[in-house]
């Protein structure tokens, strides 16, 4: 591989990491609170609101049913509004975040459901407010599950970002398609795939290590 190819590969890797990191952060920042809301409004939960819960659930499911590739195209106007453009790495962050927010929300909801109702009850018996129950009991106890879910999300984002790359989003997916497919350079394509595999492995093992740190089983 030429020096040019190497620098191209490195640049694309940085673009991928940038897309994954920013959309990962955005999806955590919005998805986890949404997951909390989904959880606490369930029937028999601390702030039960069955109607709100059902409405939220429906919206989240709908968002999750839209195939990513369609979502990406469908929200181009929104992307333009937020990012100022509809092509490039920064623009790709909008659909990536939007797709992963409901995903993270469901994962967070699942992690919170695993927190024993006895703990919530114990906190209530101590006179905890609902906000205290969420921040002092539910989220800390669900932390290992949340870390697990975020690892899953980041890995999914890596592959989604490659898809976003295919329609002009930059990153490793873009590189693989442009050089590997359109110019038929198998070496670059293989190199891209190998880098993707390494990135996913690194995310996965870092996630597992972090999860183990917070899990006191």
């Amino acid at each position: 591989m030429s020096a040019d190819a190497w620098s191209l590969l490195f640049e694309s890797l940085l673009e991928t990491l940038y897309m994954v990191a920013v959309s990962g952060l955005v999806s955590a920042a919005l998805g986890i609170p949404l997951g909390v809301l989904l959880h606490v409004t369930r029937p028999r939960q601390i702030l039960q609101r069955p109607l709100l819960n059902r409405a939220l659930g429906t919206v989240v499911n709908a968002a999750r049913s839209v195939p990513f590739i369609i979502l990406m195209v469908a929200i181009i106007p929104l992307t333009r509004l937020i990012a100022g453009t509809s092509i490039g790495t920064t623009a790709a962050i909008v659909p990536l975040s939007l797709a992963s927010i409901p995903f993270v929300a469901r994962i967070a909801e699942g992690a919170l459901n695993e927190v024993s109702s006895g703990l919530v009850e114990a906190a209530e018996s101590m006179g905890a407010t609902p906000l205290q129950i969420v921040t002092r009991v539910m989220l800390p106890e669900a932390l290992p599950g949340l870390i697990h879910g975020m690892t899953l999300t980041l890995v999914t984002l890596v592959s989604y970002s490659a898809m976003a790359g295919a329609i002009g989003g930059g990153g490793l997916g873009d590189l693989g398609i442009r050089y590997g497919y359109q110019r038929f350079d198998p070496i670059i394509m293989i190199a891209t795939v190998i880098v993707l595999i390494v990135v996913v492995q690194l995310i996965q093992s870092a996630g597992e290590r972090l999860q183990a740190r917070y899990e006191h089983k």
Partner: protein
Amino acid sequence: MIQFKSISKTFQGGSGPVHALDNISLHVPEGCIYGVIGSSGAGKSTLIRCANLLESPTSGEVLVAGQNLIELSPAELRSARREIGMIFQHFNLLSGRTVFQNIALPLELAGKSSSDIENAIAPLLELVGLVDKRDSYPAQLSGGQKQRVAIARALASQPKVLLCDEATSALDPQTTVSILNLLKDINKKLGLTILLITHEMDVVKSICDRVAILSQGRVIEENDVESFFVAPQTELAREFVRAAIHEKPASDISHQFRQGYVEGSRPVLRITFVGQNVVQPLITQAARLCQVDFNILQADIETVHSKTMGFLMVDVVGEEQGVQDAQAFLQKHDLQVEVVGYVS
């Protein structure tokens, strides 16, 4: 200290309403260890959860330290709950917090400063005997140690009342004894009022001052523990007492045992007495005066509410008149005598 005033609780179950509590009135005096016993599904958990309104009764009033919990606003209820500690069958400790941090939780929730928390927790660790486990996580503790942490946590906010929901049911017998001793200790040292629910009569026997039996959501019997053991009023109470003294049914002891009297059969008596020294002279005297023999089928000495209590099962051998006289003699001397059946 805790007063339930005709509380009822009805759940809307899938197959119609379930009346978990049916017009219950109970009074738990200050400083008392009060036990509520009942079989599975009797409504015990529902009742104790009404004492801090984790469950709100459908009707009735709950008074704790003179305050009617039902009338309180959510914020007032939260501050009332800080005065009511609670421990649970499955401990309910936060797995991600150390022993110290678990005990600190109620104080954090109340907005205490970290130096106040530090000062409050040291004596609690001492009290429950876990000074060396301060920085362990719950997963590294035994069941008994976990319950000690839960007790320390419940005491952290210096409550007036402690609620125990089957606090020893997940523990082995030895650990149960040590936890019960700790509760008794706390009750004495801190003057804490304890309401506990259990399905184990041994718990009532070893630490309670008063006891109520719950059956199908109703209190069917209520008494001080001694009287309860000496003279249980209802069939369910008698069953619980027999289980607590590990009494075998008479039919297991004697194969000639029958329920009803037939010509020439002799009564089998259960004699219950308080204090070890009274019974032997009385039995000897009865034997001498009425010219009968006592054939001891089973004998058991138990400590109930820190008093010695004896339970004897005897069959009385002799002339019919003598047998009757002997029975009357024992009763006259304040022994609790009950005919449980006959042998021939």
